[in-house]
């Protein structure tokens, strides 16, 4: 990372916290189970204003975490959305109090399958209850309560984060002034579920997975998790982006006439898989992909998506999609926008031209920045925030 970015990040008031919820505040899960005694790890950037009106909740994607705009403790890399959150960026911590929390079920400090089960004193493993996107959002709302924030200025997220944004709009419409959902969908498609199933099967096929009990045996199903990541990573890129980046370029002169990584694209995927296992837990990957697969916002509301947004009338929404995103393609975003219009919400929608695929929301996309800045600025003026 560049030195300037490091300096810029150092200059922002950054907080790291862990919100603990005792047995008196259980998390009621969609499955019917209750999670008693759990915690949410979160980061903050900027300062909450006196009126408590400038808080923005950023929701992370499947393999993201709370280190949205600060160095990652394991990889040492810049935050996954440092492009959007920082001085002079659309979400400038000088103006907003940005909160990003690790989802429930995650592995970066929030309670998940790698946490200790208080009942047994050992890792939860597969005894951890299945969680859903609404469960994640319910836990976030409890965190926001604990931080003393009644109403957020905005809830923002891409991919699974964008699904959480939609869930926020359905479950807590009165608790945010605006909503920004990027590269997301209101439900997981058969294709989405199919790719996730490949990933899960790869993990479970690893002999070191041990029926999910690997932690107590001092093992890690690294090979399976790496393959899961490799398969998923392909879905985050477009064919054009892969072709541009790698084409049929070889690693070395000539073919190996064997199964080494001859092609650069193979080597890249292997690297992606190998580095992923350093920072992610295999069981968390199972649980979070499951939560995404179970996500179907319309089904939660009698099959009518507009019904999900019935409480969000006149709320401001910004929905963004990318032309080359085949994981959550534009028609999915349009379905959301149509439902928002039907519900009488103030929906704005932009389909951004990009050949970078689903991951475009994490990358340099000036039109996305313009749309985010414009939307946030005008909403801030309406909210009476002095920027």
């Amino acid at each position, binding site marked *: 990372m560049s030195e300037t970015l490091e300096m810029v990040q150092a200059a922002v008031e950054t907080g790291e916290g862990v919100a603990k919820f005792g047995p008196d505040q259980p998390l009621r899960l969609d499955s019917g189970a209750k999670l008693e005694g759990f915690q949410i790890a979160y980061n903050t950037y900027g300062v909450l204003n006196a009126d408590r009106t400038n808080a923005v909740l950023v929701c992370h994607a499947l393999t993201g975490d709370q280190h949205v705009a600060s160095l990652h403790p394991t990889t040492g890399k810049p935050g996954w959305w440092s492009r959007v959150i920082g001085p002079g960026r659309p979400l400038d911590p000088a103006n907003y109090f940005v909160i990003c929390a690790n989802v429930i079920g995650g592995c970066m400090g929030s309670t998940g399958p790698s946490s200790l089960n208080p009942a047994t004193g050992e890792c939860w493993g597969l005894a951890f209850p299945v969680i859903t996107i609404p469960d994640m959002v319910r836990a976030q709302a409890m965190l926001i309560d604990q931080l003393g924030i009644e109403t957020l200025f905005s809830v923002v997220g891409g991919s699974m984060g964008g699904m959480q944004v939609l869930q926020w709009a359905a479950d807590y419409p009165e608790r945010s002034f605006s909503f920004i959902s990027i590269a997301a969908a209101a439900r997981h498609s058969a294709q989405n579920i199919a790719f996730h199933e490949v990933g899960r099967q790869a993990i479970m096929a690893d002999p070191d997975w041990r029926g999910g009990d690997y932690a107590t045996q001092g093992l890690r199903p690294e090979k399976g998790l790496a393959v899961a990541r490799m398969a998923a990573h392909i879905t985050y890129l477009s064919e054009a982006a892969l072709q541009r980046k790698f084409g049929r370029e070889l690693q070395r002169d000539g073919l190996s006439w064997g199964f080494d990584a001859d092609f650069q694209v193979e080597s890249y995927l292997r690297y992606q898989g190998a580095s992923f296992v350093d920072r992610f837990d295999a069981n968390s990957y199972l649980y979070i992909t499951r939560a995404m697969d179970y996500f179907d916002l319309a089904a939660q509301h009698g099959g009518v998506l507009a019904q999900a947004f019935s409480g969000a009338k006149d709320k401001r929404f910004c929905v963004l999609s990318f032309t080359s995103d085949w994981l959550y393609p534009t028609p999915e975003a349009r379905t959301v*926008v149509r439902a928002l219009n039907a519900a009488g919400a103030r929906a*704005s*929608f932009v389909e951004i*031209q990009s050949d970078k695929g689903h991951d475009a929301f994490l990358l340099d996309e000036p039109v996305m920045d313009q749309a985010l800045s*414009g939307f946030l600025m*005008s909403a801030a003026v309406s909210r009476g925030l002095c920027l």
Partner: protein
Amino acid sequence: MTAAHQGYREILRLVRPGARVLDVGCGEGELLELLRTEKDVDARGIEISAAGVAACLAKGLSVMQGDADRDLAEFPAQAFDYAILSQTLQQVREPRKVLSDLLRLADRAIVSFPNFGHWRVRLQLITTGRMPTTEALPEPWWETANIHLCTLRDFTTLCTDLDLTIEAAAALSDNQPARAIDPRKALENWRAESALFLLSRRGTPHGRREPGGDLFE
């Protein structure tokens, strides 16, 4: 003042304060912003270019990327009081369908377009034998986005076919104030460079009359 801006003034006159307005093809939101400032409308828009939508967002407008041919279905019926289609009808693939859609999602449609029956257009075609280029139709044929040009007579016939009521019509020209016209008069089909219509579905209750009543002066 250009004919387009004359059109804006007319639209501002037509729209009831506080109304729900959809501008189809809203560009960078110039008209919507005027309507919001001067008429306190609930302003929404559809715009085909991402950059245009981004500019609208910066103005605090709620705008969706989309086009008139494909994306009007994304709004529920009668979601608006007015749907505006300014100088765009001649560029859509299915003008009949778009007109019907406009009056599905709004009580009234405000539609303007260049009149291909204008005398200068007819004269150029007759004398030069080539596609006319005028102030209202500035681009050469190989560059224009206009694929469905029509005359006033064509349009009023279409309104009859679609069972639409023409509540008012005005002729727009550069540097001249808008002029109320009877669009079915042959003479107006020669004189109007561009025209603006206020349409409603036949059978729409007309009890809710615009304040002031005088639609065009």
